[in-house]
Each structure stands twice: as structure tokens, then as C-alpha cells.
């Protein structure tokens, strides 16, 4: 190649390389009317240790699929949305429903009509007034299939008229069950006196948007979201950074911190923490021993993270042999020593589960009698079952999700225990997540592990009813018990919460006695590291705003 050609080629390459500063490539959305971005928030370049002196909280996060409250289905998006938007009610740390934009509410005697009184003088972040009309408009927008919401049915479907709007495919927009009495009063009518309805309103799908702003801006409104949460978005570069600053028009106490910087690009979180590039990080199993050592300098930053309300379990398909025999299921349940697995394999990081509703969750009962570890009983149940004889026993395959070829250690140990104690052989099959999900939803898995159930809202209905009602779409094992169904249906319309929880506990005991699933673990305390200059960060097991009380003391 001639020298000239080589030279021009290198010029082209050089020009390409130098094009654009990478922190402000095509996707920067610098937002907000008063975008007085503090100097420390500018660009990624010098944020490493400068922010420790400014009142800016820095953390690692994942790219949220959406900022639109009506479209959210995942926890990443929800975690950010609750900082920017809000709704009628929210949850406190004890998982009790407390007022948010609605200062109070009344429930009619028949339990079907809720009248919400909004706070005085509430505004959106751009200064527009928030009215009951905005709430009605937002819920109708979420219900309208043209918006594309995937879970409007779940969270709003109890409101009279929502299902009609969803089914109408866009031709019907008004939800009959929503009534604007005046600017500060909103009336919502639901189809039956369901007490868990209020809990569903804490989820983003029911949050309020500004009718004026969204209609005026059209589709691109989401690039500069306007909400009622404690923060506003100031900058968002897809896959790189997300920056928030306090909302001056927030109705409550203004956030103490001056800004939040979230790094979305990745990196080894522990390394970044140790290098003072982020102020907080989770601690994985691999680093746990090191930071728990009192002599390690990181040890003083160690904090406990309360458990998420989740249940990890092995599912039985009661329509497929050999799991159509309750004695066989019970035999397997009694044959496993969960304590030893939790202790030796998970270093005490999981808590063995013998019931359905997790501890600390509303409706939890410590009195549920589980199928405890008892080898004699296990063998007895096996001998009573149709499948006692290995020769006539059908092939058993346990399906787990994931890639990488190694099942979770607990699945391996449990299979081993079944073999040792009962002589039951189980094959482990690993299937990639989307395929696993599809097979599970089509109810064609015989035995499955590696999945868990996590509550979306703080009500036991989300465990007992949603998972075990015979007609539920996520009752993946075809479990059906008419007595359990009756209890569930009764609970749906029981107005007294205490009575309702009792009904769920009764159902729970039957579900456990039937060995409908094989409960394995409740989530337990985890660990995180937080820099000493961070005050006020609260770990919560459910998705509620976390940043407004954070303060950085330098």
C-alpha cells in the first residue's frame, strides 16, 4: 500500500476514534426546566473521588427497561420509578399502607367504594397542579391497551370498568368505576369488597401522571419525565448513567441529598467500592468471608440487608406421575434435611421453609406445621404410595433454569438425599430461562426447581390465592383442592383483615399437608457495604422510595 494511502487511512481511523466525547453521545437527555446541574454531576470523568466530598450519592444499577409507570413489569424499573413518580398510597417500613398523595380515604360499608381525599396544593415536578382528574386519566391510560401495559389487569382489574377498557382494544377509554368528585376527591369503585385492593395501589401501575404534560409532549414525554416523587431525572444516557436530583415541588420533606448518580455500565462493584467510586455495594458469597473478618478494614462498613419476601421451592405437577400421588410427594418432602443444607452449603444465608408465607410478611403464621425432616416417616409414605416399587416408577426429571451446566448445589444435594434415603432416582435437566418459563406456564414440567416466588405487593393473597387457586394461570402444578379454593374465594371478599388472614392460614396448612409444592427456602438476611459518610440509606424488602433520607457527610 502506498504511503499516501496508508496515511489517509490512518487519518480516517483517527477521525473516527476522536468523534464525539463519549459521555455526551447521542443519547444524553439533559432534562428539567431548571436543569441547574451541579458541577459534580457533569460527565463521568472526574466523579471518582470528588463526589465523596459533595452531597452526592453514587451507586451501581442496571439499565431500566422503562420509566413509564404504566409499563413497568420488572424490579429495576420499579425501583427508579418510585423515586420519580408516586400514587395515592405507599408502604412504610413495617409494610403498612400509609397515605402518599391521598391524605386520607374512606371505605363504604359494603367495602366496594373508596373515596380518596388528596392533599392540599400538590404539584407535579414542573409546577402543574395535581388533581383527581389526573388520577382518573392516568388509570384510564394504563388500562388502555394502546399504551401497552402488561399488568394493568393484575393491578387495576378490580376497578369496575377496567376490564371492559382492556378488552375493548382501544375503542373504549373511560373507566366507569372512577369518579372525579372534585379536584381533590377521587372515588374508586371495585367489583367486590377485596381488602387487598389498597395494597395493589402501592404498585407503579396506579401512579399518577400529568394529563396536560403527557398529552402535550406526546410519545417523547418519557424522555423528560414529570412526576410527583421525591426526585426528578436530570440526565439519562442509556447503558451509562442515570442522574437524579431532588424534586423542588415534592409535597413532603425535600430530599436531603443533592443528587444521585447511578452507574449503569457495569464494572466490578466491590472493586469500585474499595476504590471509592461508589458509596454502596452488595456483597456476594465470594467476598463474604473477607468482609466478615473483623480485622478487614471493610468490616466496619458491613450492614445487614433484611430478607426479601420470597419463597424458593420445588414444584410438583400433580397431574403427572409419580407426583399425582400425595404419599409419594410427602415421602420426598420428609426425606430432605434442609437445616444441614442451609448451614453447610449456604453458610446460613438461607432459611429453611416449611410453609408458604414468609416470616415478617403480613399474614405470616409461625403455627403452620410443615413436613419436617423425618427419614422413617419418608420411607413409610413411600411404602404406602403407588410408586414404591422402582420397577414401576416412571422416570423423574427435575428441570432447572439457567445456562452453564451446573445446577444449584441444593438441587444436587436434595437429589442425593432422595436417592440415599428412598432409593428414588432423579435426573437433572437444565433449560435456558425463557424456555423454562414457557414450559412452566404451559404446565408441562413434571418437577421443577430453581425458581421462586416473590411478592409484588404486601398481601398474603399474592402468595396463597395467586399460586394455589385451582384456576390460577400461575398454578404451574395443576394443584386443585376444592376446600382450599373455597377458603380463597371467601377470603377475597372478607372485609375483616384478621379473619381474612386466618382463612389464608387455614388454606396454607392444607396446601402444606397436601404437599402441593416442596418449600425450600425463605430469603434471609444479606450483606452490603455502605461508606461511613452515607447516612439515612434504608434497605427495604419491598420497593419503596429509598433515597430521600440519604445524606452524605464529608
Amino acid at each position, binding site marked *: 500500500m502506498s504511503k499516501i494511502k496508508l496515511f489517509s487511512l490512518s487519518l480516517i481511523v483517527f477521525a473516527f476514534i476522536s468523534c464525539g466525547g463519549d459521555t455526551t453521545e447521542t443519547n444524553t437527555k439533559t432534562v428539567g426546566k431548571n436543569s441547574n446541574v451541579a458541577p459534580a454531576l457533569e460527565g463521568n470523568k472526574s466523579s471518582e473521588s470528588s463526589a465523596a466530598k459533595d452531597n452526592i450519592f453514587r451507586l451501581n444499577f442496571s439499565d431500566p427497561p422503562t420509566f*413509564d409507570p404504566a409499563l413497568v413489569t420488572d424490579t429495576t424499573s420499579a425501583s427508579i420509578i418510585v423515586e420519580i413518580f408516586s400514587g395515592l398510597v405507599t408502604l412504610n417500613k413495617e409494610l403498612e399502607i400509609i397515605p402518599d398523595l391521598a391524605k386520607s380515604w374512606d371505605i363504604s360499608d359494603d367495602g366496594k367504594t373508596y373515596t380518596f381525599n388528596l392533599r392540599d396544593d400538590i404539584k407535579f415536578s414542573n409546577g402543574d397542579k395535581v388533581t383527581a382528574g389526573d388520577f382518573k386519566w392516568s388509570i384510564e391510560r394504563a388500562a388502555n391497551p394502546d399504551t401497552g401495559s402488561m399488568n394493568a389487569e393484575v393491578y387495576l382489574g378490580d376497578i369496575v370498568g377496567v376490564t371492559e377498557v382492556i378488552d375493548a382494544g382501544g375503542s373504549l377509554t373511560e373507566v366507569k368505576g372512577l369518579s372525579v368528585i372534585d379536584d381533590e376527591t377521587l372515588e374508586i369503585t371495585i367489583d367486590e369488597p377485596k381488602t387487598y385492593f389498597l395494597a395493589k395501589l402501592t404498585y407503579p401501575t396506579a401512579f399518577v401522571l400529568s394529563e396536560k404534560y403527557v398529552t402535550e409532549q406526546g410519545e417523547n414525554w418519557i424522555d423528560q419525565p414529570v412526576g410527583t416523587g421525591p426526585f426528578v431525572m436530570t440526565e439519562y444516557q442509556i447503558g451509562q448513567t442515570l442522574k437524579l436530583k431532588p424534586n423542588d415541588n415534592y409535597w413532603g420533606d425535600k430530599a436531603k441529598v443533592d443528587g444521585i448518580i447511578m452507574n449503569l455500565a457495569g464494572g466490578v462493584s466491590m472493586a469500585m467500592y474499595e476504590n471509592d467510586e461508589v458509596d454502596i455495594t452488595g456483597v456476594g458469597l465470594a467476598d463474604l468471608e473477607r468482609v466478615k473478618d473483623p480485622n478487614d478494614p471493610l468490616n466496619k462498613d458491613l450492614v445487614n440487608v433484611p430478607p426479601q419476601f420470597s419463597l424458593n421451592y420445588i414444584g410438583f405437577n400433580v397431574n403427572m406421575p409419580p407426583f399425582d400421588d400425595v404419599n409419594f410427594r410427602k415421602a420426598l418432602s420428609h426425606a430432605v434435611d434442609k437445616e444441614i443444607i442451609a448451614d453447610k452449603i449456604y453458610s446460613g444465608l438461607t432459611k429453611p421453609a416449611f410453609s408458604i408465607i414468609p416470616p415478617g410478611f403480613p399474614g405470616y403464621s409461625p403455627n403452620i406445621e410443615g413436613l419436617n425432616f423425618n427419614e422413617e416417616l419418608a420411607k413409610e409414605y413411600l411404602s404406602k404410595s403407588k410408586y414404591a416399587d422402582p420397577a414401576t416408577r416412571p422416570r423423574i426429571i427435575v428441570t432447572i433454569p439457567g445456562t452453564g451446566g451446573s445446577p444449584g448445589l441444593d438441587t444436587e444435594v436434595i437429589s442425593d438425599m432422595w436417592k440415599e434415603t428412598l432409593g428414588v432416582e432423579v435426573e437433572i435437566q437444565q433449560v435456558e430461562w425463557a424456555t423454562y418459563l414457557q414450559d412452566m406456564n404451559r404446565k408441562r414440567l413434571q418437577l421443577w426447581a430453581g425458581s421462586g416466588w416473590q411478592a409484588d405487593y404486601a398481601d398474603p393473597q399474592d402468595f396463597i390465592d395467586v399460586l394455589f387457586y385451582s384456576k390460577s394461570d400461575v398454578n404451574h402444578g395443576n394443584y386443585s383442592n376444592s376446600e382450599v379454593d373455597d377458603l380463597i374465594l371467601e377470603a377475597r371478599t372478607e372485609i375483616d383483615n384478621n379473619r381474612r388472614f386466618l382463612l389464608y392460614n387455614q388454606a396454607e396448612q392444607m396446601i402444606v399437608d397436601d404437599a402441593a409444592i416442596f418449600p425450600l427456602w425463605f430469603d434471609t438476611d444479606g450483606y452490603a457495604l455502605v461508606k461511613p459518610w452515607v447516612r439515612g440509606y434504608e434497605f427495604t424488602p419491598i420497593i419503596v422510595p429509598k433515597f430521600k433520607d440519604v445524606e452524605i457527610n464529608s
Partner: protein
Amino acid sequence: MLKYIFRRIIWMPVLLLMVSIIVFILGVYGPGDPIEVQLGNNYDEANAERIREKMGLNDPVIVQWMRYIGNAVTGDFGESYVFKNRDVSELLIPKLIVSAKLNIISFIIAISIGTPLGFYAAVSYGSSKDPIVVIISLIFYAMPVFFTAPLLILVFALQLDLVPAAGWGGVFDKRIILPALTVGVPGAAVFVRLIRSSMLEVLDSDYIKLARAKGVSEINVLWKHAFRNAMLPVVTIMGFSLAGLFGGSLIVEILYGIPGVGRISLDSVYSRDYPVIMAIVLLGSSALVIANLIIDFVYTLIDPRIDMQ
């Protein structure tokens, strides 16, 4: 020759159409469904059906495909299923550019280290220096990324505090140093072996022997005659690197916090984000075809032995 280039260029859209059909069919008939992935726990058959219907996922495959192609030729690659209301091109282009920049710098490092070493190894053929150079470069080549990256981060970021542990600031920002080395140094081994074997072959050829016989100085023999001809195979390697220019190394990007295309390439498959998958596959195929074409073209310019039909 123009006719030849023209024919090669015409072939590209045909190839891309074929690729798109294959990916489409795999997506539609393969296991897994994007709607189910997003509904997760809240799966509801009726709801899922309604959403699929609305997104046009229940239409016959041929209709969906034609709709996609019709949009794609105008530059509209659709919206991501996962990142709501986000254009695929808007989503991918910044990431592709970032990955490309990292790849270019890594390539420059690889070729800058590898070429002189390969040259040196070939020239030292017969002495112990030759196998030593080769062995050392192979050791670096064999080291996996998930070993070298954490090691470099530990030493240079945490212990010596010379660079941040993660992040991306473009080509002239110091945070590119560690990832570029992580990718570039093993890549050098490729050039070491390539240049070395190419040089050895050239050094053994007749015209070199002739040049020596004529009394040309050794430096001129090596540099003016041998080296320039030995560089020919490098063009082929450049071609492959060019084809992979917009690809991202998943592990490097995750460990160093680089907003490239690697992560989304994998995530989109897990979540069945078909518009994104299609765009990435089509881009990769195009890159490969174009790279091949460029390399063949460049070869005819620099190697007089090759004659384009």
C-alpha cells in the same frame, strides 16, 4: 474489475435477506416467548394472548417478516421489546460505537506489540530467543479474560491507584488503558506467530536470496524487501478484526463497566428481544461480508500476484 466488485456488492442484500429469514424462523418457532419473559410471575394466558395479538406476533410468519424487511430498508429496525418505546437503532448505535473504539485501540496495541516481536522471533530463528518469544506470547494468549481483568484491576486500580476500577470515558480517557490491554495483549500473540511464520517463509524465498547475493545490506534485505511482503497476511487478520469491529466482548465489558454492545447481545437473546437480536445479527453479517470484500480488494492492490476475475 468494477464488474467484479459490483457483483460482490449485489450479493450482499440477498445474503442479508436469507439471514433475516433464518433468524425470523428460529425466533418464531423456537422455544421461549418475549411476552412471557416480561410477564414473569404475572403470567396470564388471556393477557399474554391479547398483548401478542396487539404486537402482531400472531400474524403469519411471512407477514411479520415482510413487515420487518419493509421497515428495515427504510432504516427503521423497530422498537425493543424490553426497553419500552426505544428504537433499536437509538439503543444500539452508541453501544456499537463504544465497542468499535475499544476494538480499534486493542487492535492497535496487538499489532504494535505483536509485529516487532514476530519480526524479532523470525530474525532470531535458530537461537533460543525465538521459542522464548513465542512461548511468552502464547502464555499471554492462553490467560483467560476473567483472570487477567480482575488481576489488572486489583493491581493498577486498587493497589496502585493509577486508574479507576471501572468506567468509560472514550478513547483518550485513562480508563481505556486496562480493558484495551486486556484484549490487546493476548491478541498480540496472533500477530507474533503470523509475522514470524510469514517472515520465515519470505526470508526463505528466491528473491531474498538474490538480494543477499547482490550484496544488499542485511537491514535493507529485512526491512525493504522481506518485511513488507511478510505483512501481507496481516491484511487478512485485519479483515477478521474489521468484521468483528462492532462486536463486544461480554466479559471485558461487564468487568470494566464499558457500555458496549456485548452485554445487550447476550441479554437480548435471554429475553427474546427479537428486534434487537435481528439488528445485531444483520449487522454482524453485513460487517463480515463488507470486511471480506474490502480485504479482497485491498489484496489486489498490494499483491501483484493476485488478479481479480
